[in-house]
């Protein structure tokens, strides 16, 4: 590797992970979600992983102690995917059209075996004649595996002061 290539490379658990790899992982994930390929999306999580969305008044407390929008352990995450694949998930039948933009991607070593990844997102959602915009940042924990990067924690933190009218979180943010 040249010194230029080494810039933005994080080493965890003996593996080198570049920012480009992290970005590709996030872009692939965004495509899967926009295409509603939820089984493939769920496969991006390791067993025991979590999916969280804190409330808009969030100031760093544990979601185990207070309220949140989404506080899914792995069982609930699987239940959420199963629900969203059902025609009886009325809030998402028909599905929202979503389009996701991701930028400001950064990666840091986290403890011995994980990467802390932060990124900005804009998710556009069209449904029922309305067009909503969700803006915020991701704060994920990713682990490198033989199959590639995987989520240990997927966390979406909204910048909004409150969810705007109609902007529910019935899809994956």
């Amino acid at each position, binding site marked *: 590797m040249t010194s230029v290539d080494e810039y933005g490379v994080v080493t965890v658990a003996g593996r080198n992970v570049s920012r480009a790899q992290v970005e590709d992982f996030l872009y692939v994930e965004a495509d899967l979600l926009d295409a509603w390929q939820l089984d493939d999306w769920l496969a991006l999580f390791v067993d025991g992983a979590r999916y969280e969305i804190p*409330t808009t008044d969030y100031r760093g407390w544990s979601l185990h*102690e207070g309220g949140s929008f989404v506080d899914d352990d792995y069982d609930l995450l699987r239940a959420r995917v199963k*629900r969203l694949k059902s025609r009886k998930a009325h*809030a998402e039948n028909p599905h929202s059209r979503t389009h996701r933009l991701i930028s400001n991607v950064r990666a840091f070593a986290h403890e011995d075996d994980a990467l802390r990844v932060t990124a900005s997102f804009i998710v556009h959602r069209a449904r029922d004649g309305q067009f909503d915009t969700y803006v915020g940042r991701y704060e994920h924990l990713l682990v490198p595996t033989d199959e590639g990067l995987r989520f240990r924690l997927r966390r979406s933190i909204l910048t909004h002061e*409150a969810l705007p009218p109609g902007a*529910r979180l019935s899809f994956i943010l």
Partner: protein
Amino acid sequence: MPQAGRDGSATPMIVEDWDALTFRVNRAAYRSPDVFAQERENIWMRTWLYLGHESEIAEPNDFKVRTLAGRPLIFCRDTAGEVHAWLNSCPHRGTVLCRESEGSNKLFQCFYHAWTFRNNGDVAAIPDDAAYEGSEGLRESMKLRSVPRLEIHEGYVFVSFNPDVPPLLEYLGDAADYMTMIEQQHVGGMTTTPGVQLYSVRGNWKLAVENAMDGYHFSPTHNTFVGYLRESGFAVTDDDQYAYNLGNGHGLLVLTGHGGRISMIWEPRFGADEKVRTEEHRKEMLERLGEKRTHYVADESHILFVFPNLLLFDIEGLSIRQLEPVSAGQTDVRAWQLVPRNEDPAARALRMKTVVSFVGPGGLATPDDIEAYEAVQRGIEATAGDPRTGLDYSDMSRGMVDEVKGVQGRSIDEGAMRGFWRHWVGAVGIDGGLQVGGERPAAFLEGRDVR
């Protein structure tokens, strides 16, 4: 049935017919800006409104800023510990006084001309007040403006913009004891937590009330959530679930086949440790409350509606939901989790996960309720101004056939909704708003002995 106009003004809002056993609500009630304006004036400006929970401002000098009935307020505890609701508007020129959403402050200073107020409402400083004639009198007349009435029941803080409103406990009536029952669940009582769900729905506020008082929707609307519960080993039934009108527009669903209750009714998805905690808590409750009261406090889930803006969900866990109508077609919603003050951390984590898995805009169930309000709000445009008689009305007749016989209404009937609408039509004060055909039963069933 008379013909509905676009704004509903020329037609009855509610048409109940005790011969045909039908109850119909004019859809202009959800749609009309005129009705919304009348509600503001005759309901929201006249009755008690839920403002917040005392535990949100637990310490002296704590404050929250909150809009209620469209009016910006400061909900605070002063330095001496007293709870206040101030208009969030400088008495000088009307500027928003506090532009933070929450915090802790002894003083509120208006940025515009630096007028400064203590959190007990007194004027602390008016810069260069020698320029005024009689500055003492000026200070006295320029104290913070309060909401005229504030009373607290079991930590729930209610306010009224009407100085002449009757006492809170008189207004709450039978609803008050269901709030006490929540407080009695645990030694040390209950507190709200950080993590407030703030969201907004494109639907009329009364659709949110109906939805909460409507057990009929549960099975079809929450099909996927019921499926999740069933897979986790818990059977959900509609048996032994009843609806009560508590008077003054307040309503109650009593649910016993609906789901487990953290620390009170165990179910497999709660895990083995929670089973032990639940058994220990039961023993403690029996000693403290006796068998009968423990049964009503612990074994039943309750969904309580306090007219017009408070919903208490005492189900798997506890949530407080406040409705803030913004316009006929939009309602802001605020939801707090209510938890035992002294709770085992593992039980708290289970409680938070379980509650959020159901309620809120990111849960596995509430989004389908929101879909329902919004689909109704869009759908009722189809009949607006339709010249054909009776088309622009929604039907809430379910269970009248039992109601007329004096049989207790089930949660899957529409009796609690009818009780709400009967109170609403009187409170909103639309001339000729209610049309009654046939002979009304002498009394509607209300309340029950749970003490």
